[in-house]
């Protein structure tokens, strides 16, 4: 039956082939039977513009190999031709770009993990113009010019920098790099989930399955995830052993059926646990639609799962290591285990005539299974001195010669594919073997990444030649990743976690772990890290140049820094570092494992947080009013604030000049609702505030306001605002727009932890009060008719509760413009109608709306500071020319103001700057110096903090922090700029109405 359907498939393929323009090669390397693919379902796919056929169940890698294709990419640095090395997540070479409709392209995907679908379109990377003809390959001729540390060495000194920028960087940028980022917006949807469980099991191989069965039967809530499309791990290729009396693969099917019937267990295939974070918090990326030819609109492309598990069980298996020998990177060189995976899972022969070279028993299984499938296994070269035990015996019995104690001396390439290997025997004789694949094994490295993320200790193990994870509370490692060597052991460890009895195992051909060897790495072009083109010689050179820590060797050589994070190469990197340093591997240690285990797309991490949902937006109750007035908005933290209100054809500069002029001539109206507001109440409220602000507040009369400055305990200005005393025990305090949360936190800190005896309560009222500022000589005239109380005699810095246009209001006479001004606080819901009423009065009187830009200009003309602009966390009130509270008892920050550093005469003080050319605007942040063109290295005397065009003065103005500034008034200095120094004169920081006549008017 299988044969018949196979023939049908072939016929169909040939028919399909005629329908194609391109060349269509039947998948000639497919076996007649076997594998876990669906041979009746052909899938067409395209690689580098050529059409091929594969089967349902293939990966892109297995489908390419079925078509006899090993060459899939060029290497990163030297552009050497590279083939498929592995069959899993560890793949360093076979990175491709996938294209779909609608601008969907994804670079740097591992062909070994891409499930084939109808119409899949993939291209290779790192080649130009094509994979077979690649000009970048000339880079390999220049290999001696690109040694380890090339980048660091080149960039040393100014001459190196110049060379780097002019010569090397453009060259390398063209040649190197992995795939290209997509240029279109991502059209897909990504979802974000949170979940909890009793047990999270990572890896659905035998150990993970046994644990899931045991925990599930106990009734625990279990999540079992596996990065592959098909759960099962090594059970998928276990064709000999019987588990619980039935063939292993039947046991797998039975177990999965049992798990899926349990309501308390969720099995998640295609789900990579990419990170394990503190307190058993795991990040999982589930690929939902990538394997579908036509993903439905109803599904997200990927889901990010954040899972909190009471217990985490890591059953992540082990990764085979390649051998080290000259030219070990050629297409056709493959891990022995991968060749077996391709045969048993995908029905693909990776070659017809193969040589196997190994330092581990596992490759003997590959020899047996390939030979059984009709592949000619020419020889098994065992680098170890002897090959005994059931596996080598079985291989000898199958008629395959075994050479012990030899090594691989080289490989030969023909038409970009391996065509022969040079083997050396123990007795020194050498011989070339023709072959189309060389299958290698150098032992296995337990996959300890997630355990390391969770900070489990790593212990060197001589038998494995690798680090094994220790256990930590709440995180257990089981199976091969914890050093289990047999199927029986893996099942037993999984069951034992939940005190269950493991199923019995019979007829297993056990594989002993192997420490691996560095033999063959002594001379020649021996690649350790295939993705980043790091050779054994690079590592020896790094150690020779004095690098001792593996962390440094890693950074210097870039070994393990690729997207594969050195999954196949790191152990060799450590071992070579150890050997070159004359140390034991345990002494050298391992580099840090960092999430993600495999790359995670930005889409998965971003989830729905994009576009409008990227960042929360805060708007004031008057936002719609500003929109209706065609305001241009700016972002201030999360707030949208009206920056200016341009009339038709006006530039920002023109609009701001008009708004400032009109405000100072008649009146301006401004939405100040973003100000932070805190209600402070209680018998000790005055005492509490007095201890938190520089300014004296205990004596503040009810009905009065005071400008107040808040310091950090270190004496630096952290915020400012108005403290309004409404009643004996009741204050309304404002903060800066950005400082609201910080100030409340600061207040709560002292209230709760330093002065818990004070009877005072704090409530944030930022969202409850809308604030409309009315500023200008006619502000009072606008307000009076709307107020239900007489405010004509309300003095500057007074506060009253009264009704304005029907709204219960808290009216403050305060100014941030230097003009007579008011701030009307009303509950948010009353703000829009009040705005309309005031707006009508404003228009009648010839006033204007103004935005934050005009507000900034007007306050700068008056020398009023803005926190975060004139302050940067190093500025004291004295530096700003503000009161320092010397007469007051202790308050937060007071003691710090008399520390020696705070008393230095050359502290930077707030001054004004006037450019000699009044038309020139200074750059905020620009440095102040004494000479027009100071020599390099001249320290700055200070910097420009604010710079505007002042409509009132008809010229540019600036504020600055200047060393000993108040002693330099009248001095001529320079502001450094890209076109030389700009001459300025130091002036007092108040440019307009220093007597305050307008304010009190």
């Amino acid at each position: 039956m299988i044969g018949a359907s196979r023939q049908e498939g072939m016929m169909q393929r040939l028919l399909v082939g005629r329908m194609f323009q391109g060349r269509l090669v039947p998948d000639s390397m497919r076996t007649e039977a076997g594998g876990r693919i669906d041979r009746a379902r052909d899938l067409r796919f395209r690689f580098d513009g050529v059409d091929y056929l594969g089967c349902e169940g293939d990966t892109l890698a297995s489908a390419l190999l079925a078509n006899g294709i090993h060459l899939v990419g060029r290497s990163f640095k030297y552009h050497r031709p590279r083939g498929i090395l592995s069959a899993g997540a560890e793949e360093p070479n076979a990175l491709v770009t996938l294209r779909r409709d609608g601008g969907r392209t994804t670079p740097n995907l591992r062909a070994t993990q891409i499930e084939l679908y109808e119409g899949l379109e993939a291209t290779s990377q790192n080649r130009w113009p094509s994979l077979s003809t690649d000009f970048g390959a000339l880079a390999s001729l220049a290999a001696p010019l690109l040694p380890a540390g090339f980048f660091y060495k080149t960039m040393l000194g100014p001459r190196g920098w110049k060379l780097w920028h002019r010569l090397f960087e453009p060259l390398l940028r063209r040649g190197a790099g992995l795939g290209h980022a997509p240029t279109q917006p991502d059209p897909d949807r990504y979802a974000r989930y949170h979940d909890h469980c009793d047990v999270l099991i990572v890896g659905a191989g035998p150990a993970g399955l046994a644990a899931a069965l045991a925990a599930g039967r106990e009734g625990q809530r279990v999540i079992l995830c596996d990065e592959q499309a098909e759960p099962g791990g090594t059970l998928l290729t276990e064709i000999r052993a019987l588990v619980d009396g039935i063939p292993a693969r039947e046991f797998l099917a039975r177990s999965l059926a049992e798990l899926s019937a349990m309501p308390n267990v969720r099995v998640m295939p295609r789900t990579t646990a990419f990170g394990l974070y503190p307190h058993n918090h795991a990040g999982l990326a589930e690929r939902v639609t990538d394997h579908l030819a036509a993903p439905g609109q109803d599904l997200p492309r990927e889901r990010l799962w954040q899972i909190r598990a009471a217990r985490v069980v890591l059953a992540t298996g082990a990764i085979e290591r390649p051998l080290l020998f000259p030219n070990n990177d050629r297409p056709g060189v493959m891990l022995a285990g991968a060749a077996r995976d391709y045969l048993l899972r995908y029905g693909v022969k990776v070659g017809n005539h193969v040589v196997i070279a190994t330092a581990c028993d596992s490759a003997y299984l590959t020899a047996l299974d390939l030979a059984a499938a009709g592949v000619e296994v020419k020889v098994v070269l065992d680098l170890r001195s002897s090959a005994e035990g059931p596996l080598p015996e079985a291989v000898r019995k199958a008629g395959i010669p075994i050479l012990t104690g030899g090594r691989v001396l080289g490989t030969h390439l023909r038409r970009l594919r391996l065509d022969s290997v040079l083997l050396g025997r123990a007795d020194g004789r050498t011989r070339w073997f023709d072959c189309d694949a060389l299958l290698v094994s150098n032992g296995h490295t337990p996959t300890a990444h997630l355990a390391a993320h969770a900070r489990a200790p790593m212990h060197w193990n001589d038998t494995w030649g690798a680090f094994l994870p220790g256990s930590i509370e709440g995180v257990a490692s089981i199976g091969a990743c914890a050093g289990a060597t047999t199927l029986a052991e893996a099942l037993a460890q999984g069951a034992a976690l939940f005190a269950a009895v493991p199923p019995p195992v019979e007829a297993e051909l056990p594989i002993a772990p192997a420490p691996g060897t560095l033999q063959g790495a002594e001379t020649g072009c021996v690649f350790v890290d295939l993705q980043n083109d790091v050779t054994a010689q690079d590592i020896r050179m790094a150690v020779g140049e004095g690098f001792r820590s593996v962390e440094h060797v890693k950074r210097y050589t870039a070994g393990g820094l690729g997207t594969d994070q050195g999954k196949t190469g790191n152990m060799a990197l450590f071992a070579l570092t150890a050997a070159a340093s004359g140390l034991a591997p345990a002494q050298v240690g391992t580099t840090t494992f960092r999430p993600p285990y495999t790359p995670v797309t930005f889409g998965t991490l971003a989830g729905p947080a994009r576009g409008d949902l990227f960042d929360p937006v805060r708007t004031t109750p008057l936002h719609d009013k500003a929109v209706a007035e065609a305001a241009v908005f700016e972002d201030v933290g999360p707030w949208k604030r009206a920056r200016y209100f341009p009339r038709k054809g006006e530039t920002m500069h023109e609009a701001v000049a008009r708004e400032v002029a009109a405000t100072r001539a008649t009146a301006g109206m401004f939405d100040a609702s973003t100000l932070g507001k805190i209600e402070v109440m209680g018998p000790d409220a005055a005492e509490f505030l007095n201890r938190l602000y520089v300014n004296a507040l205990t004596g503040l009369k009810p009905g009065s306001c005071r400008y107040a400055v808040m310091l950090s305990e270190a004496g630096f200005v952290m915020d400012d605002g108005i403290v309004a005393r409404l009643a004996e025990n009741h204050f309304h305090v404002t903060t800066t727009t950005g400082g609201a949360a910080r100030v409340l936190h600061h207040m709560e800190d002292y209230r709760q932890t330093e002065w818990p005896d004070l009877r005072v309560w704090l409530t944030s009222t930022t969202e409850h009060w809308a604030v409309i500022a009315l500023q200008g000589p006619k502000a009072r005239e606008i307000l009076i008719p709307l107020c239900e109380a007489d405010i004509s005699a309300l003095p500057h810095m007074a506060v009253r509760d009264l009704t304005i246009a029907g709204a219960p209001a808290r009216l403050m006479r305060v100014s941030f413009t230097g003009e007579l001004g008011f701030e009307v606080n009303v509950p948010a819901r009353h703000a829009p109608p009040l705005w309309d009423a005031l707006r009508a009065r404003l228009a009648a009187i010839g006033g204007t709306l103004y935005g934050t830009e005009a507000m900034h200009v007007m306050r700068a003309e008056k020398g009023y500071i803005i926190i975060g602009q004139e302050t940067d966390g190093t500025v004291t009130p004295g530096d700003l020319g503000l009161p320092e509270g010397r007469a007051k008892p202790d308050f937060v920050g007071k003691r710090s103001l008399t520390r020696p550093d705070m008393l230095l005469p050359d502290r930077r003080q707030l001054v004004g700057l006037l450019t000699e050319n009044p038309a020139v605007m200074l750059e905020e942040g620009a440095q102040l110096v004494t000479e027009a063109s100071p020599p390099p290295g001249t320290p700055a005397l200070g910097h420009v903090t604010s710079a505007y065009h002042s409509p009132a003065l008809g010229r540019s103005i600036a504020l600055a922090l200047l060393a000993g500034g108040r002693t330099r008034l009248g001095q001529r200095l320079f502001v450094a700029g890209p076109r030389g120094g700009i001459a300025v004169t130091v002036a007092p920081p108040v440019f307009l109405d220093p007597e305050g006549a307008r304010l009190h008017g």
Partner: protein
Amino acid sequence: MLIIRCPYCEANRPEPEFRHAGAAHIVRPLDPSATTDAEWAEFLYHRDNPRGTVAERWRHIHGCGRFFNALRDTVSDRILSTYPAGQGRPE
């Protein structure tokens, strides 16, 4: 993301509900003006950075809003205990 037990709410809650607030058990001098510059600098700036157990302040800012102390292992990130502000450091 840590799981932190608020000693007032008596509940385990995820880290985003909390805000870290620096080292615990730093006593603000009752009369700062009586301290020497060196003593004041010690109070302001000098903090231990141990490998191992550290006592630190947290605030359940998106919960009860209160400050409390926690003992945390800086190597494993395990939180060994949490206790109200003002209470002495547990053994």
